[in-house]
């Protein structure tokens, strides 16, 4: 079973497509990072996955079911929305009570231990919590309902670097303990690099690429050599990004084969370089000949 399976998925707001032609399978058991610039459609995709939005085109199933189709489906998916909304007037303890009342699978012991460990005062009103504490409270609510899939929309966006690191570390520990799949979004690759084993690049309302991080790193190379027309490369080497000086060409290519041409110096790419290459390709309106870059297996 896939954690998330989208086919031709699109969402239109009046005239503008916030997400279009999104075909994507995220396997279960992964920590998938959804990365893309602001306004790329990350939130739209995640809201479609939890049923806060209904698709304008295509279909989406999450853990085999239609998002938010009933209490059973809702119980399977935990969601932490952007800006980690909580009820400002309710105390931390009230939030735990809320979770216990509204979720049949609620793990009260876990929630209480987590709040204790995070040093959150149960009597504190949620509106008075710091951004990091609020994010932790929202995460506690989402994890303690024991979901099979946890979806987080820019959970660390409002946190300082130290809080970011702690939050993500804590998230990973909790997920490892429970064996849940995770999808989390960010516009910063650095946030995701440390925790994700699967990456989806979303830019210009489209999925640019989606694959295992290891497979992505193995199949992308930076080629540096004498000036060349990108069209002259072998057919199995797909150019993601090319830049030229008078005498030199630098290209980022994707290929499943080793690059054997001795004219090139071949360099490994970092995940950040790779994501940036796809983002700038999308920003330049460069469309790949392949409609969606499905993972090659």
């Amino acid at each position, binding site marked *: 079973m896939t954690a998330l399976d989208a086919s031709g998925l699109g969402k239109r707001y009046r005239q503008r497509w916030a997400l279009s032609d999104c075909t994507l399978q995220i396997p279960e058991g992964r920590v998938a990072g959804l990365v893309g610039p602001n306004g790329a459609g990350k939130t739209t995709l995640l809201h479609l996955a939890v049923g806060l939005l209904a698709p304008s085109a295509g279909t989406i199933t999450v853990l085999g079911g239609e998002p938010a189709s009933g209490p059973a489906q809702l119980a399977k998916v935990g*969601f932490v929305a952007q800006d980690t909304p909580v009820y400002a007037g309710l105390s931390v303890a009230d939030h735990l009570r*809320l979770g216990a009342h509204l979720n049949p699978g609620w793990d009260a012991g876990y929630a209480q231990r987590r709040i204790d460990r995070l040093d959150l005062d149960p009597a504190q009103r949620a509106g008075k919590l710091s951004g990091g504490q609020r994010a932790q409270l929202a995460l506690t609510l989402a994890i303690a309902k024991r979901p099979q899939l946890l979806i987080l929309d820019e959970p660390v966006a409002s946190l300082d670097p130290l809080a970011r690191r702690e939050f993500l570390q804590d998230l990973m520990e909790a997920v490892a303990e429970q064996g849940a799949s995770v999808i989390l979004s960010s516009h910063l690759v650095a946030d995701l690099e440390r925790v994700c084993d699967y990456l989806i690049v979303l830019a210009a309302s489209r999925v640019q690429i989606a694959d295992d991080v290891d497979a992505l790193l193995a199949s992308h190379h930076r080629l540096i050599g004498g000036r060349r027309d990108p069209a002259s490369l072998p057919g199995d080497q797909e150019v993601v990004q090319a830049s030229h000086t008078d005498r030199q060409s630098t290209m980022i290519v994707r290929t499943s084969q080793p690059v054997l041409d001795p004219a090139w110096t071949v360099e490994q790419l970092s995940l950040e370089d790779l994501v940036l290459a796809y983002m700038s390709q999308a920003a330049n309106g460069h469309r790949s000949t392949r409609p969606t870059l499905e993972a090659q297996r």
Partner: protein
Amino acid sequence: MIWLTWRQFRTQAVAVWALVAAFGLLLLVTGPHLVTLYRDSSFAACRSNCGQAAGNFLNQLANDPPYHTVYLLGALLIILLPAVIGLFWGAPLLARELESGSFRLAWNQSVTRERWLAVKLGVLGLASMAVAGLLSLILGWWASPIDNAAGLAGTGGFQSRFFPLDFGTRGIAPIGYAAFAFVLGVLVGLMFRRTVLAMGITLAVLVAVQIAFPMVVRPHLITPVRETTALTAANIQGLGINQDGQLQNVFAQAPSVPGAWIISSQVTTSSGSTALGTVPQACQSQQGPNACFSALAQKNLNQAAVYQPANRYWTFQWIETGIYLTVAILLAWGCFWWVRRRLS
């Protein structure tokens, strides 16, 4: 879900219930003495033709300050109650969730948003109807001696409960208003997603409906009784003359039908025309009003009254409550539709 609904609602609930409880206490303190006054009055002992005794009783109360003040305060409270419920219970209920984004938290618990909405609408809707019903009940109990007397002779600032302004302050109609105002507030909040804006729009719609309904709809709920009687000199109160020297209209005292709601009263010719003809000679010379009114009465004019008799009061109460409750149910359906379609 009921726990969460109550937890979020309790402050507003306590505020409104405390207001009603405080007023109820005022009624409890003043009520027994009002009953004593009534028992001691000639009106209580009266068995037939009690108009005069009823009038005396009301005039006695009018000179006894707390009773008229409490009577007016009660009417004011129960007229304002639907607005308070619509503005402070209805409008913020969902608008605040949408504004703060907390609906995303609520909608991702293991409860469908339909159930979430149903519980919220159910709990607060019933609380709205209960508070309006209770206020109407205790006010009706307190004012029953006054209402009985005012049904026979409206005087001293007390009016029949069938009068447009008083109709909505008694009986079961306030329950309908409260349900309508609450669901209206919820739907407006859902549509506009801003608490303050939703409160403003809810108030505007409520005021418009509460003014328009008694003026435009209520008189026609049941075909009113039209009664034509011969105009007597004693009934005439004045006359109007137009530029052509013709009789424009004659003002006459409304027919006295105890407890009825007089919708209109007009002087016409015997054939029913409103063109009343020439002004009698007696009215043009300085002979005084009595001579003029006698001359007018001799023109064989009729007084056509349109009214709803007192025995239709409860029928009107049930019809009006039914209409408001039906609209409230339709609006509630609109809330479900909006949550399902527009917010996804």
